[in-house]
């Protein structure tokens, strides 16, 4: 088995997949803790569906670089969702659900009506479930993913205290002079970037798992924000790495294997939490 692992690791695209997978899982887990605590666990799912809808529009418009449309649209939706919060007429969870299903339906409809692809099912399936796109990255794409992940992690660490304050009590944070709106916007932009990156790894249907499972697993065992954040990052990276390795060795779909690993760890931590 080790021979096989080393054999596969010789291939650049396998190494790229592991690097990108680990970086994305690390970034998403950092933000996952904040999102879970703010009761925005489902935002990843909603935004990924928005990204799917945007991708459908970009496909219909025959844009050569679809991300030029996907990313701004996802960022705008993320900002709107996180900033409006409880003050909006359509509140948090309802707004996410509305955007999520609306974008998904609209995207699929557009692809059905206008797509010239010979394999529409394949197109949709690969976007929803990630397929093997993580194994088809070029070096430049890996570098960009790495840069973005590092930027997201850097900002999170740099603004850790403020994000912590806004996460736990936004009103109190505002009263103490912290610009909650600004930090919410930053969080929203980071989430959008991570979502768009993670579509490569697990597909748009499974992104939520990457965001919430490590955070929930860590919360089962630890209680402080700092410990939960650290544990969540470690668990997420381990699950992503193990998931990718299993999928490479056993020939299983990458995205769902990573999520299965996340679920397994969650059950394990749940049992550990009960014992405590």
């Amino acid at each position: 088995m080790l021979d096989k692992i080393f054999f596969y690791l010789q291939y650049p695209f396998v190494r790229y997949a592991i690097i990108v997978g680990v970086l994305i899982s690390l970034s998403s887990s950092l933000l996952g803790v904040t999102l879970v605590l703010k009761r925005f666990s489902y935002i990843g799912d909603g935004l990924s569906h928005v990204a799917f809808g945007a991708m459908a529009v970009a496909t219909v418009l025959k844009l050569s670089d679809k991300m030029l449309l996907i990313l701004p649209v996802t960022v705008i939706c993320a900002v709107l969702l996180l900033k409006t919060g409880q003050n909006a007429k359509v509140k948090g969870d309802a707004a996410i659900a509305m955007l999520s299903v609306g974008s998904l339906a609209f995207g699929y409809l557009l692809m059905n009506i206008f797509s010239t692809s010979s394999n529409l099912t394949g197109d949709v399936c690969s976007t929803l479930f990630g397929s093997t796109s993580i194994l088809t990255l070029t070096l430049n794409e890996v570098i960009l993913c790495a840069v973005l992940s590092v930027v997201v992690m850097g900002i999170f660490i740099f603004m850790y205290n403020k994000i912590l304050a806004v996460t736990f009590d936004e009103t109190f944070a505002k009263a103490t002079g912290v610009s909650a709106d600004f930090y919410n916007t930053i969080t929203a932009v980071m989430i959008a970037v991570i979502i768009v990156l993670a579509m490569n790894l697990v597909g748009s249907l499974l992104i939520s798992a990457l965001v919430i499972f490590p955070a929930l697993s860590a919360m089962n065992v630890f209680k402080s924000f700092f410990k939960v954040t650290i544990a969540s990052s470690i668990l997420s990276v381990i699950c992503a790495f193990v998931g990718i390795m299993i999928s490479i060795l056993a020939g299983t779909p990458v995205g769902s294997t990573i999520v299965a690993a996340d679920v397994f760890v969650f059950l394990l931590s749940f049992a550990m939490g009960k014992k405590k």
Partner: protein
Amino acid sequence: MKMRLLRRTIILSILSCSIFVSGCAGQGDLPDESTDITASDTIETEPIAVPTPDDEDIIIPSPEPENTDNNDAFIPASEPENTDDNEIDGDYIDLTIMSSTVVYGQVYNMMYYPEKFIGKTIKMKGLYSDYFDQRSGKRYFACIIMDATACCSQGVEFILTDDYKYPDDYPTQGDEVTVEGIFDVYEEEDGSYCTLREAKLIS
């Protein structure tokens, strides 16, 4: 004032970085748009139609040259770049010993960076498919591999040696076959195409 400036700088930095993500998550983005390999179009943005025995509209990535004996149609095998791939695989790439996930990644590389694989002997296992193009009057043969989710597929065209007579010596649509041939690229009408020439059916 300073704080505002700092905030603006941070927001602008994030947004700038976000724009650069373009290539990063582009599932269907071509690594190099100048590479005109029809088979590559079948991956994700326009995945290949998975051939089935009763599917009349199947698309096989590469057409067969009119005269298979005429090797002049092939682009002379250029010296492959010295990359990691070449060092690992040597001149013989056996895809049958790899997991389906890795095979998909490797075939993707073969389609997108064919110059790295020209002249190498490839052994692969997949579903046999043939397609008769009424417009050109040619019949194409391909070995189709699928990804782990079975929703995306890629095909590599092969041209069997003259020892094989169609249709007697050829498999039937959808049969699992193992093919071995020399990877090459040739140009025809609307672009460049990958193929396994001098191919043999192992099973």
